[in-house]
């Protein structure tokens, strides 16, 4: 797959040994992507990627011009790159083929390790609930691993590659494929999978424009015409993919990994972590169960509708930039769709919780405490003259009646149930009583999840009915991680200052000092650091006409989007740098590594290698492991800023 650089000359052309400096300097992302491709597909593929990132879309001849690689090598690398969806192509009217870098493809490689772990854990958890055996869990993982390494795969391809012994599991494999497709992890590739979507959109736009001009002879302003044609193009474009997705999947269909599905899982994990640190572990566990149940049906994170909006803005437009209002409209529609689809009630969640086995069982009883309940029931009701509903639990009938007839009543009195059930000693149908008690406590937990003003984990549509505001939660999530990073890197005082600036929007040093109760010198040193890292911006307010610096007041403000992007770049750069360090270390010890990989040495290292070599080898592996851990930690932070946020 990879094109090696064994010699400097091939077909009379000079092959560059090292990646050009611009692959690192043009952007942190370019540095990261080229490093990733270099470690997976080799230097030549990495060079091509670097050139494509730099120049946009190029033909093979142009790629040769910039990379100085022989055409044969370029074609060989492009096959691998297209197969892994790192590069997409488009054909223009003159049948020239252009190649473009595809950002989404590379994330499948960056995430590959995480994806395999996620699939394993996902089906391991299912195993506990639905009795999927361990062998099947391994098959799920193997299938996804194979799909990721080859980019796409059909069921037949996979079965053909199996040994005779493995063929015994054919039925199980088919079942696993089926399950993976149903759970949304695998999706069939459409005929546009390898094509540049924007070019496709542009082509369609031109066709629609031609058709429109031909059919409509009435005089119309150019901008009005553009709007009409863009509308038609967007409909047509969406229809193309709907037609493709309607096709029935068979064993010959090529399947690819669905990155969106994985991102949804990641988002759920990040949200439940946020919940854990804001509300507590039990709330987080309940929330996690809810998220896992509904994440699959939520709107896609890399959303086609937003992509279309961007294409439509870029295609033959004289205006500058994307209209934020139209973007907001699309996001609003997605939010409404989410709220509609992701509706659930307390009973559904209780059933889901009860599916958990003994090991993972969630203890709900005594998790809600109302210290002044008994005291207040008597006093407050009289004081406030508020008629309060009181549930009598002497007989089970009254409770059943309540549960069946009025869900709202049950919600309002949930704490009454909880408290009185604690001391309930009756022996009539204890299981059902316990169930009702759990239902009431669970309802209170859901209410807690929906009542936090800063972090609205759930939205209560009507009493007892909730939904998950995925899109609204994206900004607080990234803001929270960002703040935590500031706290860890710059210290608690910096967080205090930043939060104060954030709340005040624009603030000067003096007022800042009064609000955060910190000494002027300290404030100045924190401000300096935060400005240095472009977390804060200075706004100059001149007081005199000559803008005298002594009389000028300097105020400070924080632009979250801007500073978040800078932070994202830093994290991307760090990730790339870690990979670079690993590659460097490996090339430094190339002889030792080659030796350890030799057939006669492999497995017998202790016999064949001298002690100093063994120590060095051990050091090398430890270095790689610790750096890969760092890489993955950074990556999980980038997730939040890259994908898990409102576009």
């Amino acid at each position: 797959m990879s094109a090696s650089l064994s010699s400097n000359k091939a077909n009379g052309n000079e092959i560059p040994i090292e990646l050009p400096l611009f692959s690192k300097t043009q952007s942190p992302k370019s540095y990261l992507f080229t490093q990733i491709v270099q470690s997976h597909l080799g230097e030549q593929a990495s060079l091509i990627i670097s050139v494509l990132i730099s120049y946009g879309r190029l033909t093979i001849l142009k790629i040769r011009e910039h990379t100085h690689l022989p055409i044969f090598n370029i074609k060989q690398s492009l096959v691998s790159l297209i197969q892994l969806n790192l590069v997409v192509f488009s054909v223009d009217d003159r049948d020239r083929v252009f190649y473009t870098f595809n950002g989404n493809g590379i994330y499948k490689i960056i995430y590959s390790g995480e994806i395999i772990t996620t699939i394993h854990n996902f089906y391991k958890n299912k195993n506990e609930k639905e009795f999927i055996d361990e062998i099947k869990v391994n098959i799920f993982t193997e299938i996804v691993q194979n799909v990721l390494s080859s980019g796409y795969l059909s069921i037949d391809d996979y079965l053909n590659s199996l040994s005779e012994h493995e063929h015994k599991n054919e039925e199980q494999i088919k079942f696993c494929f089926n399950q993976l497709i149903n759970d949304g992890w695998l999706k069939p590739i459409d005929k546009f999978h390898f094509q540049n979507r924007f070019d496709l959109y542009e082509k369609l736009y031109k066709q629609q424009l031609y058709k429109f001009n031909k059919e409509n002879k009435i005089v119309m302003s150019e901008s009005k015409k553009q709007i009409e044609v863009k509308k038609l193009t967007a409909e047509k474009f969406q229809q193309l993919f709907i037609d493709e997705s309607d096709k029935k999947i068979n064993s010959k269909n090529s399947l690819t990994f669905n990155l969106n599905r994985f991102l949804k899982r990641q988002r759920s994990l990040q949200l439940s972590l946020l919940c854990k640190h804001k509300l507590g572990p039990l709330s987080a566990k309940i929330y996690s169960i809810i998220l896992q149940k509904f994440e699959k049906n939520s709107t896609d994170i890399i959303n086609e509708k937003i992509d279309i909006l961007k294409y439509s803005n870029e295609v033959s437009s004289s205006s500058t930039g994307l209209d934020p209002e139209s973007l907001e409209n699309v996001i609003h529609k997605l939010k409404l769709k989410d709220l509609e689809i992701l509706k659930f009630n307390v009973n559904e969640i209780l059933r889901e919780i009860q599916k958990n086995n003994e090991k993972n069982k969630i203890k709900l009883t005594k998790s809600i405490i109302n210290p002044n309940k008994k005291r207040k029931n008597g006093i407050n009701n009289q004081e406030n003259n508020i008629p309060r509903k009181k549930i009598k639990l002497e007989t089970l009938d009254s409770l059943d009646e309540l549960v069946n007839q009025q869900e709202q009543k049950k919600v309002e009195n949930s704490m009454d149930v909880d408290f009185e059930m604690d001391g309930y000693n009756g022996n009539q149908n204890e299981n059902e009583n316990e169930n009702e008690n759990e239902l009431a406590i669970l309802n209170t937990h859901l209410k807690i999840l929906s009542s936090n003003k800063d972090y609205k984990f759930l939205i209560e549509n009507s009493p007892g009915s909730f939904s998950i505001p995925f899109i609204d939660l994206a900004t607080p999530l990234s803001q929270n991680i960002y703040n935590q990073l500031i706290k860890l890197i710059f210290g608690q005082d910096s967080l205090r200052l930043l939060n104060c600036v954030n709340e005040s929007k624009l603030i000067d040093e003096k007022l800042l000092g009064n609000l955060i109760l910190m000494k002027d010198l300290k404030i100045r040193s924190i401000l300096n650091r935060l400005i240095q890292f472009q977390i804060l911006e200075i706004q100059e307010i001149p007081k005199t006409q000559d803008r005298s610096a002594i009389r000028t007041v300097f105020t400070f403000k924080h632009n979250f989007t801007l500073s978040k992007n800078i932070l994202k770049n830093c994290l991307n750069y760090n990730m790339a740098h870690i990979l670079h360090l690993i590659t460097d270390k490996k090339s430094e010890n190339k002889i030792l590594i080659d030796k350890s990989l030799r057939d006669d040495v492999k497995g017998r290292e202790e016999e064949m290698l001298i002690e100093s070599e063994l120590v060095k080898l051990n050091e090398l592996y430890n270095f790689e492991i610790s750096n890969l851990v760092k890489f993955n930690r950074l990556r999980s932070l980038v997730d939040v800023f890259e994908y898990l946020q409102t576009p």
Partner: protein
Amino acid sequence: MSSSISTRAEKLHGLMLEQKSGSIFDQKELQILAKIANPEDLMILAQELINKQLLKLVKQDGVLKFQAVKASEAEKVQKMSKDEAMIYSYIEASGREGIWTKTIKAKTNLHQHVVLRCLKGLENQSYIKSVKSVKYPTRKIYMLYHLTPSIEVTGGPWFTDSELDTEFIDSLLLVVWRYVASKSYPNAFNKNPEYNAMEKSQPPQQSFPHTYVDYPTAKDIMEFISNSGIANVELSQNDIRALCNVLVYDEKLEKLHNGFIDSYKASWQSILENGGGLENDVGQEEDSPFDLFDSYKIITPGYNENESEIPSDIKDGAIYLDSWMNG
């Protein structure tokens, strides 16, 4: 008192001083007080007192009023030079706020040297004192020797000798947070052995219901602090509010919007970071991503304030921001 003033004037002065200190009288009130029907007679007496610095004229709401000056005060002023007396009168009028030297100069229209000489003289006789203003640290502000500077000048309870007392603030912040935290979650800090023995049967988190409204308010916190006698200065509700806001900026407290003004709740993260929370955690998701919020378990909070305490792996750049910017 000087024997050169008439008995009637002396009597009027005595009557005026018998009233509440600092009382101001208009002409009619003085007439009633001194039982003098004819305003002209009163004016003669007033003029006599004014000449002896025993009476001060004050203009209030456009009406001329009179204020008695103690004999000792009058004597003090009488001993002063004309310039000193003028400067003294402006300083006296500024009250507890004090007056800036530049303002004195502008108001008296005296040369700077004269103003400085007079101020020095008055200061040497302990008639006035120089105070440091928190609001304008570079200005030289004067006020009468026996007066206590106002909060505007001293900066309020957070300042000791015109310096922000961060140690005092930090200890108060801790007390406030601890008080709010103890009222925010049931059993969040319950670490007694009896409870721990029961803990396994307890849920991993105990919360108050969403309808719970007894979270502490600024007033509750103020009462707690004043009852406990922790602070030797009197703190107002506004001061407590300022402390709570700092804790909100620190993300240790959350401001609640439950219909009660200034109601606060401690954040769960702050409780965890300070060793609270229940121990038997619910099984963490196995595929859970790297949790930045758990770093408090390995990193000492505020480590970057003292570089020598930074663990080596953090120093080596577990998380580093500047590599791209400087790279």
